[in-house]
């Protein structure tokens, strides 16, 4: 699974970094994003829904937010 560090970034930067990372990935691959902005819990799932990617899980741990997504088809 690929990883992306988006800590200390305020939205929409975590979404932009996710978007830019996903472009380099193949359908079916998974990406774990680490964030600190709670807004990412809303925005990254919304971004996945409108762009055809799958939200696998979200978790809050030690003041950090871990979001796993799976890249959708083209």
């Amino acid at each position: 699974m690929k990883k992306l560090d988006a800590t200390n970034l305020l939205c929409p930067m975590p979404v932009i970094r996710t978007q830019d990372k996903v472009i380099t990935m193949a359908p079916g691959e998974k990406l774990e994003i680490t964030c600190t902005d709670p807004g990412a819990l809303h925005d990254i799932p919304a971004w996945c829904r409108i762009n055809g990617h799958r939200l696998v899980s979200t978790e809050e741990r030690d003041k950090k937010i871990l979001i796993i997504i799976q890249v959708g088809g083209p």
Partner: protein
Amino acid sequence: MKQSQANNLNQPHKAIALISGGLDSLLAAKVMIEQGIHVEGINFYTGFCVEGHTHAIRNQDKKKQKRNNALWVAEQLGIKLHIVDVIDEYKDVLTNPKHGYGANLNPCLDCKGFMVRKAHEWIIKHNFDFIVTGEVIGQRPMSQRKETMPVIARESGANDLLLRPLCAQFLPETLPERNGWVDRKQLLAFSGRNRKPQMALANEFGFQDYAQPAGGCCFLTDASYAKKLGDLWQARGNKNYDLDDIMLLKVGRHIRPSENIKIIIARDEGETNFLSGYRKRFTSLQATSHTGPLALIDGDASEANIRLAAQLTARYGKGRDAEQVTFEILAASGLKHELAVSPLPKDNIPADWFI
């Protein structure tokens, strides 16, 4: 310009719509979708965009909605949204605006031209046919006037590929209209600052919930923010900035006792948490003897300046009436030391130190 294969393959023509997250761009995109156009959204992030998350740093704003309105609009419309980071490119727009600033440091006309130019570059790269914006004649004093509409179209390079569905009846025909991709008769004739026509159209489309019906999506239009940005430029002697600089201007009390030092003091726990992310960039102060806010020193962290910063910061903590408050001082290098100071009396803080 290369156009999409829409005609040959009997597929819809394709437009990119600038989506701010407000009502006008929502409606403009919807009007195009209703005409059978394939619409995707584009949103440019300059770093100055007002978003719920920025407000949500503060404790008092924790309950505010945290959604990103551009994403929300795209979801309502059922379209893709491309969010583009233009922070670096935007610096030239902000620091050298050809058409000058509005009431504060808002270069609205240059900004709109820049965004349409970026959208034009995008449609060329992605083989789309035209650009849609939610502009309405007379709605904004600087960028949305009848005289400035052609300026934006011309200077962006988009020319007649730029369609403004909400006020198209007042404007010359664009290529999508001339070619019959879009039916001009179904386009609108909105003008002025009255929002009732937009609200009626939103109702007609079934949109009950939409953001900021009167606009206002940029910190550069805010007098207090613009003052802090002007101060930053003056202190540096140039107009350079990075994303951290412009984020920090949104947070805390900004106090400048002299040209070579600015102290940023958190106003609550939420801001303390946010500012603590910058402890590797600035010297920071945190009271250890009493509860109190985190402060950062931007500038010369000399012994005298650290002492002054501690006295000021003590003023805003629970130890404000104590004889002494002890601080942990953490340098950006990671070196720590303790310092005990007397809080600065309120009357000893000159009003002109506050930015």
